[in-house]
């Protein structure tokens, strides 16, 4: 079972993503509420995958992705954001994200993307 860390400042979003992933046999090992928390939880939990929001207080998802990749170059981070702008997509890719899903998302889209990322190992 693949272990996932969910990063989003909105508790309802974390709850919804967790519900979708749990029903599809992912193991949600932790949740983080901002970019700083994300790095700490990543170091502690070493998940197989991270779902990462971008707009968050303290440190945003781009900075958190850079920090996680600096700690573990093999980390797999999938961005989930309402921002659908090519410059942001570039920033996410440059930071080390492996995929990018635009909110509002369909449940199937998250699952197919995460499975694709896992199977690309």
């Amino acid at each position, binding site marked *: 079972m693949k272990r996932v860390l969910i990063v989003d400042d909105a508790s309802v*979003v974390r709850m919804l993503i967790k519900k979708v992933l749990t029903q599809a046999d992912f193991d949600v090992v932790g949740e983080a509420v901002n970019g700083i928390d994300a790095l700490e939880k990543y170091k502690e939990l070493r998940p197989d995958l991270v779902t990462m929001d971008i*707009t968050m207080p303290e440190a945003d998802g781009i900075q958190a992705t850079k920090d996680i990749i600096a700690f573990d170059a093999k980390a797999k981070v999938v961005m989930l954001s*309402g921002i659908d*702008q090519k410059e942001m997509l570039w920033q996410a890719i440059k930071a080390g994200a492996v995929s990018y899903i635009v909110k509002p998302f369909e449940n199937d889209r998250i699952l197919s993307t995460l499975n694709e990322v896992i199977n690309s190992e």
Partner: protein
Amino acid sequence: MQISKEHLKVLDIIVKISMDNASRSFSKTIKHAALIQLVKTDLVDISEITEEMNNDFREMVASILRLEGSLNGKLMFMIPLDGALTLQDFYLQEEPGTAKEFDELTEGTVQEIGNILASAIGNSFAAGLGSMLLPTPPQVLCDFAGSIFAQLIFEESVDNDKILLTETKFKLSNTEIDCYFFLLPDLTTLEDSLNEYEKATNINP
């Protein structure tokens, strides 16, 4: 405060396009249709709009964000408290009536709807302007309409009698719930942005 009628028309067109996109994102998020009932862009008198808001005695939940980039501004999504509870049930796909009182989940729902709407507006403007427009993390408030609105326009009201405001009213289908979305563009960046938008899209007001 200087803004030409032509720029006001261009802004009105962009806002209407943006709101179409925003309403689609909103509807997809809550899995119910959010129908646009009104989109209005105007220079409004601060004392008049403040009085109008102060006469609305409903308790509201609001999400306030800033938009930062080539065009700066403030955005606010506001919904009556009972509507926010219904919205929470829609968003979390619970039976109607499940949410009984304002809590962390209500706050999170309004926070996320504000974020989705602001992102949709930012995406639409960015597509025209060719540069990034990013929302900041939302601040969620639960208070009377007048108090919330006073917080939105606090900075502008210090030095001005009028503000440029776009107001959108949504109705959630099969309910009696109205909700509001305000955009308060920063005039110092607005004119340059509209000039760029006109050039990029060949809009001729």
